[in-house]
């Protein structure tokens, strides 16, 4: 398809993508072609710092999946540059010589990083911070770098510094002027930001004019030299001092160019067929280098492209959020003005300021350390609302909830989504959950800083309780998905490496067992085990009791035992004077009240494998007597139950997994209320998942019915692996099934034609092969000499069962 008569979008950044979306929203049919210089579909540049900090992977940054373009008839030309544009003829030339014809064109050529013409700027080890390739190069550079210097103490420079700190590099930020982020902050706010940045481990050098980048004989950068003659050692330098609009194509096409491509209030360039949007455009002498104005521009540009002449863009109020974990900073508009009201707490490091112009209208807001009500204040500033009592406004904003926002207030600045659109997604489009609303509107999918507001609004619209994103590490606001991606991408094999990579687990530590599970699951049990990240139960393989003693439950598959086994258990209980012996709810035998030091010897004398009754793991498979003895039995519950337990024992899971196999629908083994329940029926087996009989009682959902016990086991294991991979830590199957819905589970577990069930079974087999079938064998080879003892106690010496039965040698006798 040539673009004859259609719209040509030059550039595949956020602006180009936004133009495509806005045009398609208004006109489903006009031919639309987007030419992207990069070889990938448009991605979210705003989240680059997340990429560098290891909080996202490159794929997650993609704005739309590939089929989005196909579905909407947008022709995507990837990896090609437009080398010449003839607006009068309506034709452009690509770098492969191809010509594309257009009726109208949108220039979204973006900007290049501004690299000062300093000696040494092109040395190896000196990077811009602009593209995923830059991020990858910087991240690779951190492997053998010890000291990094970031030139530029603006928003992006600070985000780059934060990313570098996450890589364990010593970082210094050098900045030309006397305060950080001088474009967005006044002196007082900058003075409070400084210690917060330093607390990240970043040194800040203000009023340093870089004059040269120095190199050693091997040609790599070694230091940054300043105008005052001082130097800062650096084996990695990141330059982030601003942007330079890409205007060459427009200039060669004869369009008017100043700093950027000059556009009028309709976003039209000096030629009526061509508009320009985003960082390449200069409107009323302003070039915006941030994302929010792009969305305000594209709405008007799309109208202009489709022939309207009445849409008007009058400029944007810049707003900014610093995306550095642990530092809350939001600014809008001017940082200084005719009048200002400030509420600051030096000790707490909070600073809240509203700026008014000479007419008493809101002109700016700076919120540091405490950003409550920032949507409300940003909205007032954008609308230039008159403010009667600025002090009262600050107080009101502190108490403002998302419910107080006007519908037009922009909630997601990355994707330009306002409150009304989020409410409509629920009320008009019928979205029921935060995930659905975010997928539909894209609110909250950019930098993610507005996500809690989006969820509050969804709760407001649905009348439900507010949903929290399920953070695996709440301190660092990291979800299981983000952390799993990090483990995969960097091939991390231990909790310590994961903590080093992103900080998760470093603060309260409550998530360490969850991280330990995650690492083991992603690495298919080929991880490096670290016991400090495990609960005491998993350090000593027994369940801690209220008096600090432990319970011991050996593996008795299917609950089927023998007289000899019972006799042995009874003897152990007697010899060790076990305070209580009890049959558990899962048909196993529990020896309660065992001291930590006695655990190895008790296990030795039992000579049975661990029943894993202490772990977030596959627990017992409860059975009824099935066809063995029961008059009503329809299926071999014991045989299938023992086999099911054997096939999945030893595997850890997000939360405990209780199972049962029952021989008929009378349900004596209570399979309807287990995480996994198999029920024999006339001619087959039913597989139930997500049942519960705990603090909540829930009948499991019928996954499907199959003919044989072996098929039922296969499906149970396929479901188990799906849950192992997708369940949030401590999320039982009954919560998981309700969260994702049975349809999604069926699609993953039953749809053989898609191949996913086969892949799940393969990953299950790999994980099972590497799982530790019996951690009680650590009695012979403890991971630490005092694994089963205190500082001043010793584990009971391990005496083989034969010697125990013969008894200790009596004095002197042989």
């Amino acid at each position, binding site marked *: 398809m040539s673009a004859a008569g259609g719209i040509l979008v030059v550039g595949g950044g956020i602006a180009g993508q936004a133009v495509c979306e806005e045009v398609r929203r208004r006109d489903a049919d006009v031919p639309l072609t987007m030419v992207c210089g990069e070889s990938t579909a448009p991605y979210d540049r705003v989240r680059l710092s997340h990429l560098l900090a290891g909080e996202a992977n490159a794929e997650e940054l993609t704005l739309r999946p590939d089929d989005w373009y196909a579905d909407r008839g947008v022709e995507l030309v990837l990896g090609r540059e437009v080398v010449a544009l003839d607006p009068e003829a309506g034709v452009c030339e690509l770098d492969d010589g191809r010509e594309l014809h257009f009726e109208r064109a949108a220039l979204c050529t973006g900007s290049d990083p501004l690299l000062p013409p300093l000696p040494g700027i092109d040395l190896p080890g000196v990077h811009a911070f602009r593209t995923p390739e830059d991020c990858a190069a910087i991240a690779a550079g951190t492997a053998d770098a010890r000291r990094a210097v970031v030139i530029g103490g603006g928003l992006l420079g600070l985000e780059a510094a934060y990313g570098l700190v996450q890589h364990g590099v010593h970082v210094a930020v050098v900045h030309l002027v006397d305060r950080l982020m001088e474009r967005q902050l006044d002196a007082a706010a900058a003075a409070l930001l400084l210690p917060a940045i330093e607390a990240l481990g970043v040194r800040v050098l203000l009023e340093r004019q870089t004059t040269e980048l120095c190199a050693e004989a091997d040609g790599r950068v070694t230091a940054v030299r300043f105008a005052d003659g001082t130097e800062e050692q650096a084996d990695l330098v990141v330059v982030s001092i601003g942007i330079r609009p890409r205007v060459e194509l427009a200039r060669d096409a004869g369009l008017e160019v100043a700093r950027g491509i000059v556009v009028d209030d309709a976003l039209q360039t000096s030629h009526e067929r061509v508009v320009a949007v985003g960082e390449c455009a200069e409107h009323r002498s302003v070039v915006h280098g941030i994302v929010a104005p792009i969305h305000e521009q594209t709405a008007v540009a799309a109208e202009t492209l489709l022939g309207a002449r009445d849409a008007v863009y009058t400029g944007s109020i810049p707003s900014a959020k610093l995306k550095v974990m642990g530092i809350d900073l939001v600014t809008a508009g001017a940082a200084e003005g005719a009048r200002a009201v400030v509420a600051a707490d030096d000790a707490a490091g909070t600073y809240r300021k509203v700026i008014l112009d000479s007419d008493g209208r809101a002109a700016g807001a700076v919120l540091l350390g405490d950003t409550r009500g920032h949507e409300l204040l940003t909205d007032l500033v954008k609308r230039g609302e008159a403010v009667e009592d600025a002090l009262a406004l600050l107080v009101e904003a502190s108490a403002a909830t998302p419910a107080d926002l006007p519908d037009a207030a922009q909630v997601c600045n990355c994707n330009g989504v306002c409150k009304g659109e989020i409410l409509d997604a629920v009320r008009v489009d019928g979205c029921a959950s935060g995930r659905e609303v975010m997928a539909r509107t894209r609110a909250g999918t950019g930098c993610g800083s507005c996500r809690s507001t989006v969820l509050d609004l969804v709760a407001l619209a649905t009348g439900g309780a507010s949903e929290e994103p399920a953070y695996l590490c709440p301190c660092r606001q990291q979800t299981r998905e983000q952390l799993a991606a990090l483990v995969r991408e960097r091939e991390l094999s231990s909790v310590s490496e994961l903590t080093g990579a992103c900080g998760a*687990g*470093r*603060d*309260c*530590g*409550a998530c*360490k*067992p969850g991280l330990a599970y995650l690492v083991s699951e992603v690495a298919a049990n080929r991880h490096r085990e670290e*016991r*400090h*990240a495990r*609960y*005491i139960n998993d*350090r000593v393989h027994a369940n*801690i009791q*209220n*008096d*600090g003693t432990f319970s011991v439950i050996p593996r008795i598959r299917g609950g089927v035992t023998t007289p000899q086994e019972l006799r042995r258990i009874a003897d152990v209980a007697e010899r060790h004077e076990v305070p209580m012996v009890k049959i558990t709810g899962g048909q196993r035998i529990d020896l309660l009240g065992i001291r930590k030091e006695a655990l190895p010897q008790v296990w030795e004398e039992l000579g049975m494998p661990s029943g894993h009754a202490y772990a977030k793991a596959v627990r017992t498979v409860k059975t009824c007597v099935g066809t063995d003895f029961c008059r009503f039995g329809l299926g071999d519950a014991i045989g299938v139950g023992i086999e099911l337990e054997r096939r999945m024992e030893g595997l850890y899971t997000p939360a405990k997994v209780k199972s049962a196999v029952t021989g008929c629908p009378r349900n004596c083994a209570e399979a309807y209320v287990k995480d996994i329940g198999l029920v024999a029926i006339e001619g087959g087996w039913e597989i139930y998942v997500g049942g519960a009989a705990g603090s909540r009682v829930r009948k499991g959902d019928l996954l499907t019915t199959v003919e044989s016990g072996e098929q039922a086991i296969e499906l149970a294991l396929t479901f188990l692996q799906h849950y192992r991979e997708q369940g949030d830590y401590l999320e039982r199957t009954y919560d998981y099934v309700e969260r994702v819905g049975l349809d999604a589970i069926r699609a993953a577990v039953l749809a053989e034609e898609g191949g996913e069930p086969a892949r799940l079974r393969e990953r299950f087999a790999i994980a099972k092969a590497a799982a530790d079938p019996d951690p009680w064998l650590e009695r012979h080879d403890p991971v*630490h*000499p*005092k694994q089963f*003892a*205190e*500082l*001043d106690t010793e584990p009971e010496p391990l005496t083989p069962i034969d010697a125990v039965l013969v008894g200790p040698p009596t004095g002197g006798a042989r």
Partner: protein
Amino acid sequence: MSALADGAWVAIGRAADVPLWEGRRVTVAGRRVAIFRTEDGLHAVSADCPHAGGPLQDGLVADGCVTCPLHGRRFDLRSGDWIGGADDGLTVYEVHERAGELHLRLP
């Protein structure tokens, strides 16, 4: 009153027996004391959780704090304070390592 004059250093065991980010208990003169090793070094606090007597040496350690394995109460290992709570905290003891041996000072 001079703090230096009070108490005596008591050898309590081998330093290598307390792994990083784990704890082990020792009983000295009737007092149960939990010894922990963190990235900052060694810490010693009373071993019984004031809430329900939980064995703090078996808790999870992170950020200079221990979380009781029974009900999740969290204490600062440097100050003994109960994080986020008003009740009693833990008794903090001085502990140091010399030539591979741990020494505890009883108040």
